[in-house]
């Protein structure tokens, strides 16, 4: 009964959070960011959130529109032809295309509605699974409910809410721990299944970053639990069982996540450029540590993305690495450390501290970087995800203790937290005084006055309402007013109208491009207009494409912008890739493209230029030279490079072909072009190669007149096939074996689990 009551109450709170959006038919998606990208003339809605929230509109929403469109046709999209001259979208590790809720909602609704339903369900699940987990640990109803609320509305969850991935992984973390605990106590394979599903679903959530944190959190939890069992019961066997249970859930979880993991590994193998160690968060010594610590008491102490200060990176990025969990929950979490000693509290204290230290770029961070594959690319500051989880549980534990603890200990813990807050905030003010506005420390500044009022409310709650029936209600109300408000200001719903991009210049492009490509448009927005772009914005993409198109890359930025306005050797590459149009929001004329080859075809809010002499998307060519990748790149980056002179093959052809002197170059006709299939008709007058100017990638197969042939890597990045003289129908099909292997492993895992469950029941 308690569980139903708790679920319904948390559902009601989620509904309250979504109510303004539902009533006004708005959406939690920062579509206003398009206005900041110099993309359109600004629209009338003058709302800005944080500029750090670009990814949901630049990556996820365009991806969703494509996914949604093809899902409705019964196709699970794996290849995206609109970015990077073709891109294995499914394998990017953050598509989340196989997430069951996303599959169902996108099949039934439009992308924006599907997004809202997904967010709603996951936020609800965050609270509910935390509530169930705490109930399983024998917490009272009110403390479990409080723990659920703290977790679902904590600063980290709310700051990243519009990214979907944090709530998706956040919902699975308590479910995983709950299943694990249940398996340890009840030894039923049902819980292995449930735990494996939760583990796998964290992979299907929208980012490898949080997925890895779930894995690391799970590992740390089981290790700490095993160590405590040895300490408490001196029972080594029991602790081995604990580790074994962790391994078995992880094993089955990985099997169930294989359809995503195997294709992603394939792309990772080709994208070594993105695997170099990156340090994202430099707290800047003790000052940085103290500043971060003070944001746990006063989240806007040195500004927020909405009310910025001059504190440079500290101002905006500190909000991104959010560890605030509400002032009253923080007081209660500290309170939980006093009074009756418990191994459970000790476990979660260590758990929280480990991830706080991970977020602060300490030796623990480097230890994870050395031992966990892929951790070196993660934003270590986001480990505060696990800190928030641990502190959420400690705060529920503090609420549980509140009635039983004696006055002295209560006063001591309260004063300890209070002075820690005062101390860190004062030092932070002193450190950053130079960059803070003169009127910053003032009660008229709500960033400053709200934490003060919340502290007064906390003291009234703890000391005046302590024995009153209002105690629990006031704790929950003040927490909701605190973190719920933080969530609200971070995620102001936006009018769906902003997703309407119809404009004169997009129509110009849409009507004229056909299969030709464009450059200069904000990466990934091309998906929305079904325009084929050579650019894109993704966390992984093959080195051969990156190095050719981005020869002088910015050191830490994993996003391609083929700068047609500054790259001297860009023109031949634009011709080769079939880029017929250049979009210029600042109306600049592309300087390194010969003047006689460019024509301005639109001049309004933006300028659009048309390039002459662009190669067709599919062509036949007979002369070829064999060059390795490095030689080929060097040749192609020369200004005098003429692609139609000869084809660059990265490996010798299987048949004994000789590159003849007389040049043969002709356009081939693309008769069908869809994401997973390209059909071309060609009339070859001589032995030659057909080149399709789409990205070369494993998983593509080619059939010439129905017979399977080998695909060659042409010009380092494109696909080519050898054809003999005569009329031919050439069919390129994308059917990745990595995905099939993944599905096979998924089915094997599921089958094995079901057998184990049946055996367990018998």
């Amino acid at each position, binding site marked *: 009964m308690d569980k139903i009551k708790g679920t319904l109450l948390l559902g009601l709170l989620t509904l309250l959070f979504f109510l303004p959006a539902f009533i006004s038919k708005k959406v939690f998606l920062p579509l206003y960011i398009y*206005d900041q990208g110099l993309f359109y003339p600004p629209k009338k809605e003058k709302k*800005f959130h944080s500029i750090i929230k670009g990814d949901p509109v630049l990556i996820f929403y365009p991806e969703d529109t494509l996914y949604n469109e093809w899902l409705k046709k019964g196709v699970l999209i794996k290849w995206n032809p609109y970015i990077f001259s073709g891109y294995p979208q499914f394998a990017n590790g953050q598509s989340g295309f196989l997430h069951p809720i996303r599959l169902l909602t996108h099949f039934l609704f439009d992308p924006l509605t599907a997004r809202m339903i997904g967010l709603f369900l996951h936020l609800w699940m965050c609270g509910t699974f935390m509530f169930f987990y705490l109930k399983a640990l024998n917490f009272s109803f009110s403390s479990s409910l409080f723990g659920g609320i703290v977790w679902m509305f904590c600063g980290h969850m709310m700051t990243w809410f519009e990214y979907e991935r944090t709530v998706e992984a956040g919902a699975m973390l308590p479910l995983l721990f709950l299943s694990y605990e249940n398996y340890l106590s009840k030894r039923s394979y049902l819980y292995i299944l449930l735990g494996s599903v939760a583990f796998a679903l964290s992979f299907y959530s929208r980012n490898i970053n949080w997925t890895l944190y779930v894995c690391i959190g799970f590992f740390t939890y089981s290790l700490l639990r095993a160590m405590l069992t040895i300490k408490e019961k001196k029972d080594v066997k029991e602790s081995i069982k604990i580790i074994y249970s962790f391994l078995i859930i992880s094993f089955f979880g990985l099997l169930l996540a294989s359809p995503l993991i195997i294709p992603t590994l394939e792309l990772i193998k080709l994208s070594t450029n993105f695997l170099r160690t990156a340090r994202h968060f430099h707290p800047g010594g003790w000052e940085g540590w103290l500043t971060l610590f003070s944001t746990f008491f006063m989240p806007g102490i040195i500004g927020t993305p909405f009310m910025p200060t001059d504190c440079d990176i500290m101002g905006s990025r500190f909000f991104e690495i959010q560890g605030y969990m509400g002032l009253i929950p923080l007081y209660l979490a500290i309170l939980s450390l006093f009074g009756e000693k418990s191994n459970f509290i000790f476990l979660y204290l260590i758990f929280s501290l480990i991830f706080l230290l991970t977020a602060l770029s300490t030796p623990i961070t480097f230890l994870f970087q050395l031992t966990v594959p892929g951790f070196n690319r993660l934003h270590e500051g986001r480990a505060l995800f696990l800190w928030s989880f641990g502190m959420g549980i400690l705060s529920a534990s503090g609420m549980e203790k509140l009635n039983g603890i004696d006055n002295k200990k209560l006063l001591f813990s309260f004063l300890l937290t209070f002075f820690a807050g005062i101390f860190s905030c004062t030092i932070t003010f002193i450190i950053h005084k*130079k960059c*803070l*506005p003169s009127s910053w420390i003032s009660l008229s500044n709500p960033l400053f006055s*709200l934490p003060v009022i919340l502290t007064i409310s906390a003291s009234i709650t703890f000391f*005046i*309402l302590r024995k009153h029936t*209002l105690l629990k209600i006031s704790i929950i109300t003040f927490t909701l007013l605190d973190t719920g408000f933080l969530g609200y200001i971070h995620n102001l719903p936006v009018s769906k109208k902003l997703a309407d991009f119809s404009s004169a210049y997009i129509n110009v492009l849409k009507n004229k491009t056909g299969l030709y490509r464009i450059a200069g448009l904000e990466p990934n927005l091309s998906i929305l207009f079904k325009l084929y772009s050579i650019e894109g914005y993704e966390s992984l993409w093959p080195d051969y494409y990156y190095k050719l198109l981005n020869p002088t890359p910015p050191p830490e930025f994993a996003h391609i912008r083929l700068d047609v306005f500054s790259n001297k050797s860009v023109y031949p590459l634009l011709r080769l890739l079939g880029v017929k149009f250049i979009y210029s929001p600042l109306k600049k004329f592309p300087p390194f493209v010969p003047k006689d080859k460019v024509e301005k075809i639109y001049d309004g809010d933006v300028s659009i230029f048309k390039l002459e002499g662009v190669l067709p998307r599919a062509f036949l060519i007979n002369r070829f030279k064999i060059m390795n990748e490095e030689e080929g790149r060097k040749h192609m980056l020369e200004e005098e490079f003429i692609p139609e002179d000869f084809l660059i093959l990265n490996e010798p052809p299987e048949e004994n072909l000789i590159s003849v002197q007389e040049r043969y170059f002709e356009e081939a006709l693309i008769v069908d072009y869809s994401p997973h299939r390209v059909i071309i008709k060609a009339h070859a007058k001589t032995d030659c190669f057909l080149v399709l100017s789409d990205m070369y990638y494993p998983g593509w197969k080619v059939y010439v007149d129905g017979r399977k042939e080998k695909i060659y890597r042409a010009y380092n990045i494109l696909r080519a096939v050898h054809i003999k003289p005569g009329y031919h129908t050439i069919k390129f099909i994308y059917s990745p074996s990595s995905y099939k292997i993944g599905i096979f492993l998924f089915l094997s895992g599921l089958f094995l689990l079901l057998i184990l469950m049946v055996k367990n029941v018998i």
Partner: protein
Amino acid sequence: MLYENIKRGVPVLFFLFCCVSILFCEIKWLKIQDDINTSRWYSRYASILYRRGEDERKIEEMLKLAVSTEKVEPAAYIQYGTLCFSRGEYKLSYLYLKKGVENSPTDKIARKFLAFSALELGKWKEGKMHLQILIDEFKFYDADMFNALGIVYSDYERNYQKAEEMFKKAIELNPSFLAPYYNLLTIYKITSDTLHYHEYLLKLQNIKKEK
């Protein structure tokens, strides 16, 4: 009985008082945020127009809207202030840049133009203070600034030695900048330092020839 009722009612009152205070503060937060958002929107639109080389009147119109909200995005003050400065409207530029610097104390360009505006309005002390902050605290070195500081020393404080030092620094940072040469010549004339006067006159003539 009454005491019991009060005893029971006081915690409820405290609870309600806290709720109302928190809500009041949050409504204020929303209002400020909304103002800043609106101001920021106009200010960014003005930047886009400027980068596109659009008509100045259009840019000014956007900036006027950007600074007209109750709580203003600091960048809007600075943009509008620098626009006024470029037009020679020093009273306005001083007013807006001062607000810009108050809200965005580390913005060096804003402080530099605030100092220049102050000097144009005859507020020597304030202008000098901002220039000193830029040089001493922000380690921001600019020939223009040293030249201006030199003028403060020579025209206001009559400290020709310091002024000479500043003009020389300005020349060191930008040897083709003519103003500090003229200023140095004026000082050498006042102090009757003929040797240096001729030296810098020659230098000035050479630079003019090169140009």
